[in-house]
């Protein structure tokens, strides 16, 4: 149980932080594709009795680099490349499973996650990869921010965009490999994306968004695990459903506050003044901001 909690918190902290860069570059679905590639990797590992995280890492990295190169060279549109790899990997996994019956239960645990059965070795793999991911994000914080903002601008600012894109692709594979034991291959994408969507609503600033995503990820994993434990349900599904509940609440709040703002601005235009802090903040800025504001 301790191992399970540690693993889920570790993943909750790492995967969403890295996910910020995927979501902002509109690459959310790459996580889904790579997780299916990871599944094929796991199937190969089980068949050849190699270490599953290792094979999964190799498979996801290779796929990620290929997808990136196809996208760069415009050989295939980005989403088409993703589709080809997703179905190709899934088909390969299915074929491998049919070749060697008998490891279906293990594979099942990768599909839906089996955080309760993580071994010490799994934990070591996860810690190692998590450390690499975090160190990379810290070292290349400025470059990552710039590439995410605009690759062309980054390049003309002296950032080595191509090399960094490849590194990012490999680390996406690493993130998937780390996360798949906890929530399972089918739900990995949700763990990477949902905390980011929540954070984008609640904080400003790129660094803060990364930190907030990490915290929301921990919160989501921890509460999901607790619910799973007491309700005796599947941890992976529980974690993701918890995340979606938080997202729904945050989006509702955002919607409500937008609605209230619009209502208030409407009243102000009829001479009704209610001093909200926001109208003060914008008051001194001039140059058409008021116009912007009222249109929203």
């Amino acid at each position, binding site marked *: 149980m301790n191992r399970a909690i540690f693993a889920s918190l570790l993943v909750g902290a790492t995967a969403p932080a890295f996910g910020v860069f995927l979501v*902002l570059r*509109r690459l959310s679905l790459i996580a889904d594709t790579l997780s299916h590639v990871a599944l094929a990797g796991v199937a190969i590992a089980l068949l050849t009795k190699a270490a599953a995280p290792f094979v999964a890492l190799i498979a996801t990295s290779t796929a990620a680099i290929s997808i990136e190169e196809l996208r760069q060279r415009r050989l295939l549109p980005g989403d088409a490349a993703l589709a080809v790899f997703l179905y190709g990997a899934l088909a390969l996994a299915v074929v491998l499973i049919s070749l060697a019956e008998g490891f279906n239960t293990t594979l099942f645990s990768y599909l839906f996650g089996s955080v309760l059965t993580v071994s010490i070795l799994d934990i070591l793999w996860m810690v190692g990869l998590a450390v690499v991911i975090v160190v990379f994000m*810290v070292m*290349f914080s400025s470059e990552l921010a710039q590439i995410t903002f*605009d690759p062309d601008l980054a390049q003309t600012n*002296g*950032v080595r965009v191509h090399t960094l894109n490849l590194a990012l692709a490999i680390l996406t594979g690493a993130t998937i490999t780390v996360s798949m034991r906890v929530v399972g291959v089918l739900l990995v994408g949700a763990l990477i994306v949902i905390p980011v969507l929540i954070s*984008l609503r609640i904080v*400003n600033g790129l660094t803060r968004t990364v930190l907030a995503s990490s915290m929301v990820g921990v919160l989501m994993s921890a509460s999901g695990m607790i619910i799973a434990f007491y309700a005796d349900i599947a941890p992976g599904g529980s974690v993701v459903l918890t995340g979606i509940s938080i997202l729904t609440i945050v989006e509702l709040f955002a919607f409500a506050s937008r609605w209230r703002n619009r209502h208030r601005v409407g009243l102000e235009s009829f001479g009704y003044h209610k001093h909200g802090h926001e109208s003060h903040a914008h008051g001194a800025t001039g140059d*058409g901001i008021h116009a912007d504001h009222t249109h929203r």
Partner: protein
Amino acid sequence: MVADTESQTNELKNVTSGDLAAIPIRFDETWYSYGEQVVVRDINFSITPGEFAAILGPNGSGKTTLLKLAMGLLKPTSGSVLLFGQPAHTFKDWTKVGYVPQRTQATESRFPASVKEVVGFGDYTGFSPLALFKRTNKERIDIAMEIAGIQHLANRRVSDLSVGQQQRMLIARSLVRRPQLLIMDEPIAGVDAAGEDQFHAMLRQLNSELGMTIVLISHDIGAVMREATTCACINTDIVFHGPVHQLDAQALSKLYGFPVDVLMHDPEHTHR
């Protein structure tokens, strides 16, 4: 050494025969095509230090492609593009260059960065492993925001800005490093008339007081006539390149393919 640029005016030829490394941009028999379609055909000209050059041309004339070639974002199909004497696509010394694109990828999404953070990108001088813990050059960033007139927006989220404000943010970003060469792709699309005057005053100041070389893609022929010192008219080929006061209705008509009246300027007054 560079005397083979026959298409240029004599005036410019004299300047370009200096040291190549001092020439901000030099197109040398530059061709570029997307597949079969040639978009830039045999372009030869140089932007000399201190020049305020406007690039004019109809939509789809290859202006943006030309700037992307100059910024090394595209590699010429044949010929060369030199940026301070180095081939643009392998250029390293980016602190000399400021670039303001037409639009960015991030501005359409929910990008969470503040204006200050994006302007701070301009302070980047290369990879440094501990960059996250280093102080940013706050003074330079503040000055750049002041020049672009966006100090009051410093903490606003990028995705909350209007198009004109985003453009000013990108201009501020490009000014942080105090570049020798400033390249802008239609920087004032979406800026209102008052903002336009401010913007031109700013460019005038950067060019005449700081000696910054400026290259500007523009649709505003009137403003070009008033502000720029030289002008390059592009329509796949180069139609005209030379001092702005030599640009006449004939060249413009050739450029746009229909008669253009140049009523708003008078040759005597074009040179500011």
